[in-house]
């Protein structure tokens, strides 16, 4: 491999930066849009304080969120935006795997995969019961 085509840490970091800012902007726009629909539809009603005091939301899985979005449920749209936000750093770790592969740093490919596995454990809800 000649130096011209060699992928450096700097290249990886540069793409990562773009990835992160894109993720934040897209999710921010989705949350803002959902929030405006939500306030337009329910803005004048009273908040269910109870919901913030121990009654878990229904929107807790990707499936529930998507079915809500299809029915144009404003809260589901907000939740989709929040989900995209959670996905942003995860996408960064996935991208690191690809980046380290391109750098042929297999040791760090394994480390990135390990981090991904731990986050996957959390997202796929193995631990929380």
């Amino acid at each position, binding site marked *: 491999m000649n130096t011209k085509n060699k992928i450096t840490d700097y290249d990886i970091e540069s793409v*990562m930066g773009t990835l992160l800012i894109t993720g934040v902007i897209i999710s921010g726009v989705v949350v803002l849009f959902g929030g405006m629909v939500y306030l337009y539809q329910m803005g004048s009603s009273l908040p269910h304080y109870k919901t*913030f005091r121990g009654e878990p939301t229904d929107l807790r899985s990707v499936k529930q969120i998507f079915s809500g979005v299809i029915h144009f449920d404003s809260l589901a749209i907000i939740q989709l935006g929040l989900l995209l936000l959670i996905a942003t750093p995860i996408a960064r770790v996935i991208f690191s795997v690809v980046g380290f592969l391109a750098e042929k740093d297999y040791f*760090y490919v394994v480390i990135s995969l390990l981090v991904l596995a731990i986050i996957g454990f959390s997202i796929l809800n193995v631990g*929380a019961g």
Partner: protein
Amino acid sequence: MTIIVFSLIILAGSFLAGLVGSLTGLGGGVIIIPMLTLIFHVDIHYAIGASLISVIATSSGAAAAYVKEGISNIRIGMFLEIATTLGAVSGAVLAIYAPTHIIAIIFGIVLIFSATLSLKKRNEVLVQTEAGKFSKIFKLNSSYPTANGSIHYNVHHVFGGFLMMIVAGIISGLLGIGSGALKVIAMDNIMKLPFKVSTTTSNFMIGVTAAASAGIYLHRGYINPGLSMPVVLGVVAGAFFGSRVLVKSETKWLRILFAIVITFLAMQMIYNGISGNL
């Protein structure tokens, strides 16, 4: 109070939290959680959920700027993320089962600790000795660009730093804050990283750490869209404003003021936790 008024008040409060959090480097979470629980009597689990989301947003936004400067060390970040994500998942599971008042008391203690640390002057002189064995195996030693050219640095006490990062992860997952203060201790004081590298790398890691615990909060139904919406939008706008617009202003008095406010909030959290009001 209608939903629109409630949302606007939370939005304004979160903007302020994001602004002050970015100026002092403590992050928005340390203000958001006391605000939601003490003033609006929101269950601490929902407050933590909303705060975690805002932590991901601000950290990702700031990291985007940092990584392009080439100062953060992506290998140290990724390596230590094993520790922080493991801690974060454990912390989040703990938070689900821990009683609210216990979380409030721990939150107060961590808050006082963070406030004290934020006032301490950080060592900006790089002390370099021979690198440890592990830092070579894990390829952690690196260099960073400065005005006077590239500076090489060695990493020390990898094992100690790793352990401290597990603690930082647990605190982050349990309390919904970035726990940047603990991450900085691990990298500055234990691993002897240069000031700039540890700051940017810590920021880089916060988003991944928070995402690891956010998954568990989401599945337990503690990420509430109606509450998280104004919080995340407010904190991000505040942090952006703080980093772009007010970056040149004098922050020393602000740090002191913020430390006092935080200590006051911390005592409120501890008091309400002990008396069972939260």
